[in-house]
């Protein structure tokens, strides 16, 4: 019979992992449990619950730094920084609703373990770019730290990067330190209406190649735009391409006008101001356009931006929209069979990039590669890295790759 170890402090964590390593008993690592349906199903009789390892332990707004225990709710952290007119600039996507949970239920450790970033990724960087320091327990049951609380730091290997996006397979984070940034005073969005995917790509590329410091660029094809809560988008009667600018008022107004001028030859433009902008970008961040498709599998593709529309056309099925200037494709496909895995991998074989199966029934996630399959040499290195942290493979075994 499996147990759930509810961890309240570091000593308990060390004790539990040490036991698991000695007994070779696999552990499922759970922050607040909002993303358990993401990744391959973990074959573990026991689990580590970190939801009581909580609290913001340091927040110095003028130093742009915040530390928290790994189980702290990401919503609590976002509320704390918002109060000081700051933000987590990587705009962490809240995938809970997409995965069938409630919004705002994830932990900061979970966000980092999955390297979840939102539309601002293209300008401000991913979660991994804001992850300054960590303390964690390796699969050996040893507490180690890496990084610090300052941005500029090349002292030793950057293990924060390695842990970010490792889905809890290398170590169990206990304490994390993040960089925070000032929240922009104004957020405007230029909308281009009725563009096909290829023209939208051209528009986003032009905007991102301009000096106007575009902080997000996305394209909702006609099939998905009616689902938006923003009336300008829902009632556009066709595809909507959205380009965001943020900053001080005078700057935002100037850049918005310049973008509308420079993109006018591609289609009709419209403008959203702060409230509508925030709503739209939250929808795009959290994959809301695909929430309704709950029978379907949802894939996340990262490709060269210019390849986005071609990749979608080559896959030729399902409903898709684009973020990151075309470089991030959210795609809903039938969850029958392999949920489109083979077709997607074949197309990416030609265009480069990778695909992750974000939502699918458990049996599909168990049978198919959820993460992009690796070439043998890379798979071997990945296994050696894993063994360097977790030699008995007790932490989230199989979550990313079968057997690892």
């Amino acid at each position: 019979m499996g147990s759930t170890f509810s961890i309240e402090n570091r000593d308990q964590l060390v004790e539990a992992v040490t036991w698991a390593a000695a007994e070779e008993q696999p552990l499922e690592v759970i922050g607040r449990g909002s993303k358990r349906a993401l990744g391959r199903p973990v074959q573990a009789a026991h689990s580590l619950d970190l939801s009581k390892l909580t609290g913001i332990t340091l927040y110095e707004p003028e130093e742009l730094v915040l530390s928290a225990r790994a189980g702290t709710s990401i919503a609590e952290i976002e509320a704390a920084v918002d109060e000081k007119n700051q933000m987590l600039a990587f705009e962490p996507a809240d995938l809970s609703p997409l995965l069938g949970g409630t919004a705002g239920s994830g932990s900061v450790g979970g966000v980092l373990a999955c390297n979840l970033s939102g539309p601002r990724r293209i300008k401000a960087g991913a979660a991994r770019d804001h992850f300054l320091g960590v303390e964690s327990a390796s699969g050996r049951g040893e507490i180690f730290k890496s990084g610090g609380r300052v941005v500029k730091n090349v002292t030793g290997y950057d293990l924060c990067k390695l842990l970010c996006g490792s889905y809890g397979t290398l170590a169990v984070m206990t304490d994390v330190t993040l960089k925070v940034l000032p929240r922009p005073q104004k957020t405007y969005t230029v909308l281009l209406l009725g563009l096909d995917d290829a023209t939208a790509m051209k528009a986003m590329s032009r905007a991102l190649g301009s000096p106007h410091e575009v902080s997000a660029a996305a394209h909702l094809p006609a099939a998905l735009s009616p689902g938006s809560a923003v009336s300008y988008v829902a009632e556009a009667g066709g595809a909507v391409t959205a380009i965001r600018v943020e900053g001080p008022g005078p700057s935002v107004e100037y850049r918005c006008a310049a973008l509308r001028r420079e993109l006018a030859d591609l289609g009709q433009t419209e403008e959203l101001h702060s409230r509508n902008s925030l709503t739209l970008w939250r929808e795009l961040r959290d994959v809301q356009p695909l929430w309704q498709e709950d029978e379907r599998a949802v894939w996340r593709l990262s490709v060269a931006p210019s390849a986005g529309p071609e990749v979608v056309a080559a896959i030729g099925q399902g409903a898709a929209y684009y973020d990151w200037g075309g470089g991030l494709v959210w795609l809903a496909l039938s969850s029958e069979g392999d949920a489109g895995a083979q077709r997607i991998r074949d197309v990416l074989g030609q265009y480069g990039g990778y695909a992750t199966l974000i939502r699918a029934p458990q049996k599909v996630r168990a049978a198919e590669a959820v993460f992009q399959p690796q070439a043998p040499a890379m798979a071997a290195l990945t296994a050696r890295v894993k063994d360097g942290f977790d030699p008995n493979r007790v932490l989230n075994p199989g979550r990313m790759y079968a057997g690892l």
Partner: protein
Amino acid sequence: MKMPDPDQTIIEAKADIVTALRAIVPGEGVIVDEDELRVYESDGLTAYKQLPLIVVLPETTDQVSQVLKCCQERGVKVVPRGAGTSLSGGALPLADGIILGLGKFNRVLEIDFENRCAVVQPGVTNLGITKAVESEGFYYAPDPSSQIACTIGGNVAENSGGVHCLKYGLTTNNLLGLEMVLMDGTVLRIGGKHLDAEGYDLLGLMTGSEGLLGVVTEVTVRLLKKPETAQALLLGFPTAEQAGDCVAAIIAGGIIPGGMEMMDKPAIHAAEDFVHAGYPLDVDALLIVELDGPQAEVDHLITEVSDIAERHGAVTSRISESEEERLSFWAGRKAAFPAVGRISPDYYCMDGTIPRAQLPLVLRRMREMSEKYGLRVANVFHAGDGNLHPLILYDANKPGELEAAEDFGSDILKLCVEVGGVLTGEHGVGVEKRDLMGAMFSETDMKQQQRVKCAFDPEALLNPGKVFPQLHRCAELGRMHISGGKLPFPDLPRF
């Protein structure tokens, strides 16, 4: 600084190794002549010198792969080298090791404006990337002050920054992909033109790994469009405390300038004497704040920063009115190192990072140390991100001064760690700060890092003697010491 004991059997096998290497890299690509080796005996940390056994200058990834495989088979150590500008001794040779120079990897392979990236070989200089793309108004953002000479491969190894990284990030934030070769000759590609390379973030791990994990043979970097305009403010303060408070207030006010640099009095005077930038000489601290973006934004922010500076007691406040004037503000800061070189026979450049608020304390303690060691110190400071560059002035010809400068430097770095900072912000640990790692990391921390090293280079042949004060064998690191058995913790809540 003690380096690993040279392996005499390797030194004695030199002729055989040369023959093997010449079979891979023909012609002048294998250097054995002592006069020619002399060029490689040191890097930017000139206090340390060592002739390498052999220098190899391959031209293709395949050659790099074969050279590394050949060295692995023979147990020969390898020190990778770009332009040799490391300030921490990252490219310091070993008597029983080869230098693997990447200087011939000097081509820009592809420029892709539509995807805002460039694919370059590691021997391309940092500035060379910007030069290759600036005709279309693009640039590569990280701008270490050695950018005219340092290579992108070295930037990856050290995670180089520069004055603009406060707003635009370090090397690690501006990379998309790498091709690299492991010590056993395996060629790997990580990432590409897409964001967030798949699998474990080996791109992030490689960046700043100081040439200990693999040899980079190709780099894909992100390109940014140049801002429409940039203007700088030159702000003088009666005390460093006021300047520090001003920096904190600018950031607390929600402003992230393109660059924000501070100089203390000795640095101001040295720079002004050297380049006549027009710096005020009656202040204790000088701030250069650069704001970039659309004119509307720059105008707006200049007003805000001027107001903040005035509230914090600035006694000098000048705004650049032309590109020429903006560059003149920077001229003194950019020439600070050579300027200090003029007033002292030698100087030793440190690189700690501290939480910004600790600046007044750190400067005060540094003044006390300066008296204790009888050595002058001048400070330039990436104020926005807390990265200090104290320049310790000494004379290597005076007995004991180098040692005193090194001790002084160690004390400064330990102080940085004590106040919540780190040993090195952008220069790397190398050999220079290797033996200080224990001030920041426990034995467990360092062993975990070395286990990562073991995954890449189990024989520890790639750049040994750098970063880690003590080398453990991978077999020993892999052992588990667990007195396992029963579930021994009754107090652990379970349900």
